[in-house]
Each structure stands twice: as structure tokens, then as C-alpha cells.
């Protein structure tokens, strides 16, 4: 059986990687200016000297595709970490209000700096978002000590999200006209307008955080049995919990800082991946969620760009359409788990 399982995992990983490659390629070739695959390859190898094609690929589509993949992966892993922390399959950075907390602080930071005519650096954007994430996370943690019921925790998270969003709206209302457009676009969520320089920062932060999360897969698997068992197996609970919170906050902060709040990916992707792989082992699910999240966001971003081109939809519109039903499915599967493996 364990051989059968290994086979299943190999097939799933291969499928995910191929899907990621296919949709990344699709993201590079499609758009208002149609390019062919050889065109794009030509840009990379240097044989395509068409300057407009070079600009489109190098400055617009490539950063967009890479950031969609990295941030999608980051969101999914962040969701999986939160699900492990709360042992609740419908926990995620968006429903728990962590994305909205990040959105609020980033909006505030942007407002303040714009008034002084300064553009924020990528790192300071992440910093602001991280602070907001931790703020929401702190509120959730305070509440989680009081509410034992998981559904109540989610409702509390959604409410925190609403509060943060309302405050963000308020901030935007008082912003200068010129700034509003900028802020408004960002607060709707989109993978557009991320520069190659941002992508490098994203790659470093997400790469480090996801690797660190992967290194936590052993204590996470022990933690799945419950706190007491984890403790008995020698997990240092305090440090472990802190690591989970910090990592999930950094990951979702990174997403919010660059793409705004993106809904439901953090719950939907880990659920789909766990179902496809037939396991919840962190050592498998963390990398699988990362690739799965990349695929999910590549697809959603492609749809957001192409569906009513040249009008672009916000990314959350699409992720919600695909993600929310999966979240409902995840909730139901928890209830009637008897009988299915």
C-alpha cells in the first residue's frame, strides 16, 4: 500500500508541475498582444529582437506570471499552516481577517508616504503588511482562547476582516484623489503592476518562509494528533506555535503587500491538494500546496485578465468563484467524513 501511495503522490506532483508549466506558458503568450510560444522563447534566449515583445514579456507578463505563482503558493502554504495551528480545515488568512489586517496597515502606510511624495520600497510594504497581519492574528489568538467552537472562531475572523476593511475604506475616503485610484486598484487585489524588482523580493521572502515551513513538517505532523500527543513526542509547543504564526503571517503579509487581499486560496488549495493526495502529511502537503497554489492563481489570474479583456477583473473575484465552493465542500467533508477515506 505504501508503494501505491508513493505512486499516487508522484503522479499528483507530476500533474501539478505540468499544470504550473502549462498555465505559466499560457500566461506569457496570451493577452491583448498575442504572442506565440516561439516568440516568448525567443525573448528568453535573446533571438527575438522585437523590442515591444521584449518589453511585454520581460516587464509585464513575466513578473506577473512569476508573482502570481509565488504569491499563490505563499497563500496556500499560509492557509495550511493556519489550518494546522487551529486544527480547523476552514481556517485561512482571508477568512480569519489576517489579509484584511495587512490591507489596513499597508493602506495607512501608503497614504502616509504618498502624502510626502515618497514611494514605499517593497521591503517596507511587506513590513507594514506583516505588522497588520500580526495585529489581526493577535486579535484572533485572544479570541481563540475564549471561543472553543471553531465556527465561532471563523465568524470572529470574518468580523475582524470587516472591521479592518471598513477602516481601510475610511482611510481611502480621506485620501487625495490621485492616490485613491492607486489604492483602490490595489485594495481590490491584482497581480498586475508588480515589477521585476518586487518579484526578487517576493522570491526571497516567500522562498525563505516556505522552506522554513517545510522544515516544520515533522512537528506539524505530530501536532495533528493534538497538543498533548505532540508534547509527549517532544515538540517544544511554545516555539512551534510561535513559528507557525510568524510564518503564516509573513506569507500572507507578502501576498497582501503586493497583490492586495486575495480570497479563499488559502483554504481551497490545501483542501483540494489533501483530497488529491489522499493525505494530510505536512511533508507532502506543504510543497504540494505551494505548487497547487501557484497553479490556482495562475489560472485565476489568466481568467481575470482574459475574460473581459481588455477590462481586468480583480483577482479575488475569480478566486472567490472557484475557491468559495471548495471551502463549502471542505466544511461538508468535515461533517460527513465517516465512510470516506
Amino acid at each position, binding site marked *: 500500500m505504501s508503494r501505491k501511495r508513493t505512486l499516487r503522490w508522484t503522479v499528483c506532483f507530476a500533474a501539478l508541475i505540468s499544470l504550473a508549466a502549462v498555465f505559466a506558458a499560457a500566461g506569457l503568450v496570451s493577452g491583448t498582444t498575442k504572442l506565440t510560444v516561439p516568440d516568448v522563447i525567443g525573448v528568453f534566449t535573446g533571438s527575438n529582437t522585437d523590442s515591444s515583445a521584449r518589453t511585454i514579456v520581460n516587464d509585464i507578463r513575466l513578473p506577473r506570471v512569476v508573482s502570481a505563482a509565488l504569491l499563490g503558493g505563499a497563500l496556500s502554504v499560509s492557509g495550511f499552516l493556519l489550518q494546522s495551528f487551529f486544527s480547523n480545515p476552514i481556517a485561512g488568512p482571508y477568512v480569519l481577517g489576517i489579509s484584511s489586517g495587512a490591507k489596513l496597515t499597508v493602506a495607512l502606510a501608503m497614504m502616509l508616504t504618498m502624502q510626502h511624495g515618497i514611494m514605499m520600497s517593497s521591503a517596507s510594504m511587506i513590513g507594514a503588511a506583516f505588522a497588520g497581519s500580526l495585529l489581526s492574528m493577535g486579535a484572533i489568538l485572544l479570541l481563540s482562547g475564549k471561543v472553543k467552537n471553531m465556527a465561532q472562531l471563523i465568524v470572529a475572523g470574518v468580523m475582524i476582516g470587516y472591521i479592518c476593511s471598513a477602516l481601510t475604506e475610511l482611510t481611502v475616503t480621506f485620501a487625495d484623489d490621485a492616490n485613491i485610484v492607486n489604492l483602490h486598484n490595489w485594495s481590490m487585489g491584482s497581480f498586475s503592476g508588480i515589477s521585476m524588482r518586487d518579484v526578487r523580493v517576493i522570491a526571497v521572502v516567500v522562498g525563505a518562509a516556505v522552506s522554513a515551513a517545510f522544515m516544520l513538517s515533522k512537528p506539524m505532523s505530530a501536532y495533528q494528533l*493534538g497538543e498533548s500527543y505532540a508534547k509527549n513526542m*517532544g515538540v517544544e509547543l511554545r516555539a512551534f506555535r510561535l513559528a507557525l504564526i510568524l510564518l503564516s503571517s509573513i506569507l500572507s503579509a507578502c501576498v497582501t503587500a503586493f497583490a492586495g487581499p486575495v480570497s479563499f486560496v488559502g483554504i481551497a488549495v490545501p483542501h483540494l491538494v489533501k483530497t488529491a493526495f489522499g493525505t494530510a502529511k505536512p511533508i507532502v502537503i506543504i510543497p504540494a500546496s505551494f505548487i497547487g497554489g501557484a497553479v490556482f492563481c495562475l489560472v485565476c489570474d489568466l481568467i481575470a485578465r482574459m475574460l473581459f479583456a481588455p477590462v481586468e477583473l480583480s483577482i479575488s473575484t475569480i478566486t472567490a468563484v472557484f475557491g468559495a465552493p471548495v471551502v463549502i465542500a471542505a466544511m461538508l467533508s468535515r461533517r460527513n467524513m465517516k465512510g470516506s477515506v
Partner: protein
Amino acid sequence: MGGAAISSKELSVGYGKKVVVSGLGFEVRAGEILTIIGPNGAGKSTILKTIAAQLPAIAGSVSINDTDISLLSSHEAAQTLSVCLTERITAEKMTCADVVSTGRYPYTGLLGILYDSDRKIVREAMELTGISHLADTDIRCISDGQRQTVLLARAVAQEPQVLILDEPTSFLDINNKLRLLELLRELVRSRNIAVVQTLHELDLAQRFSDMILCVRDGRADRKGTPGEIFSGDYISRLYGMTGGTFLPMFGTAEPQKITGEPQVFVIGGGGSGIDTYRSLQRQGIPFAAGVIHENDIEYPTAKALASVLITEKAFEPVSSASVELALEAMNKCGRVICCIKSFGTVNMGNKKLLEAAEKAMKTE
């Protein structure tokens, strides 16, 4: 201390500053089972949590192989001590084999990857506990009894020297209770493990423990072998029983007797009257019973339930004095029930009783 796998000295347990139980001292050698019993809220689980290093001790110490557990790293502790808890497992998409594999956690490397030697130990633990057929089944899709066995297998795979179980038999049916505890006893013997457990089922505690520790009112009330603990009315006192009588010989309790002037006289003996006693008790009818030998199997039940009981000394024929007493009691009753089908030589006195009753036309 010499030879104790796990021991405690002047141990106080509790939460924060609040002491729940204090002055605990015990030692359990390898291959022995210590069961902690006591009323609800006496702090049994708190004691277990403390000796399993889940809670810090407030005072005193717990030692494993003469080393204080607070001096062991969590890693070392995990390799010597394993737990089976009441905490419900809600993990999703974990097969039973996955759960048992987590027992290898303290022995694996940074990423927790199992080697063939680990897999072999997991397989053996599952074979030993008879759950190999469940290996690929989701942990949420099996019965309570099976789940408890899987958790025991997990604990075994951890290769502990000390195993701590919190009410391992709760929620199990009688057959599964027995199977689990038999399995545990077998493990204790074959692997030379020291066990500390709590049990609510006194009958099982009596039968499956080498030592029993009784906890009550914030202290260890008594410690001893099952024979020492289950004697006299100690258990009734331990639990402050007001709702009935505990029968130490059987490890079970009978409900409170119906007091008052007896309305029915039961001629019983040899266990034949037990059903009738219980039925009368259920209907709330006070009754007298006799003549029962003091070594009769139904003597404890009769004593617990009859408002008037006429007895005879063990192994003696029923004397005429006893018959006189019984007749006197019988004459005050409206009805007589005779549960005995045939009377033996020592029981001729009871035959006389029946004849007297038949003459008065009161028998059923």
C-alpha cells in the same frame, strides 16, 4: 529507590499555584501496572499529566529510572515515556498506520522520515495489537474500541519504558474493555513496560492492576494491592458512597436498599434470590430474606438490599434458632417468595420455612 521505572516523591500537582493533589509518593517497577482510582474531580488526570511531563510539578519530583523528569530533555523524555490520552483525535486524512507511525517521532531525523527499521517497528506494533488490517483506514472511520487500540499501538511504537494511559477503557463496550486491558497486560509483560493508568471501572481496576493508588480530597488516601484496597467498606468510604453499597468481592455496587417494615419474605440461597432482591428493590418494596449462609454467593447482595436479613454461619446447617427468627420475620410479611428448587442437607432449615409458609398459603 532502586528498580523503580517511574516513581514520585512528595509530589504536588495542580494548575498554576492551585494545588490539586499533594504529597504523592509511589513507585512502579518495570512490568507492573499501577492504577489510580478515586472520585470525579479528585485530580487523577492532573496526576497523569504531571507524571507525563505535560504539566510542571508544583512541588516534589517525578523520576524515570531514578532521573528526575525535569532534567530530561523533551527528546529524551519522549523516548522513555509514552501516553494514551482521552483527547479526541480530529486529524483529517490520517490512516491508522500514519497515527501509529507518529510513535516513531522521537527517533526520526529533522524531517521525520521513517526508515525501514522504523516501518518494521510500526508494523510489529500493529501486529501485536491486532490492528494490521486497519493500516490504511482513516482514523476517523473506525470504532472507539479500534481507535483506542490504534493509540495503544502508537504508544508501543514509541518503545517506551513507561506508558501512561488516561481512562483507556472509557466509551468501550465490555468486550473491548477486557480485550484492551488484556492486551495491555500482555504488553507490560512481554516488553517489560511500567504502566500508570486511571480507570473508572473499579471491577477492571481490581482485576488488571498490580498496585492501586486511591486519591481523594487532595491526597493519596491509600496505596496497596487490589486485595488490600478492595476489602471491607474502604471503596464505599473512598467514593463517599451514599447512593448504595459497594460489594468489594465483585467490584460492583448495588443500589440503596429500601428500608421499612418488610412486606415480602424471600427464601433464597446459592444465588437463586439475587434477581428477586433486585426486582423488589426496583419496585420499591422493602423485604426480608433468609436464611442465607454467610459464605453464600448471594450474601453480599442480600445484605446490601434486604431490610431484614437472617443469616447462618458459614458451612453450618441452618439452625433452629435461625429458623425461629426467620419465621418471626415471615409472619409479619404478606407474601413469601421461595427461590430455592431443592434443599440440601445443610439447608433443611429453609425447607421448614417453606413448609410453614405453604401451610399459611402465602408462597408464590
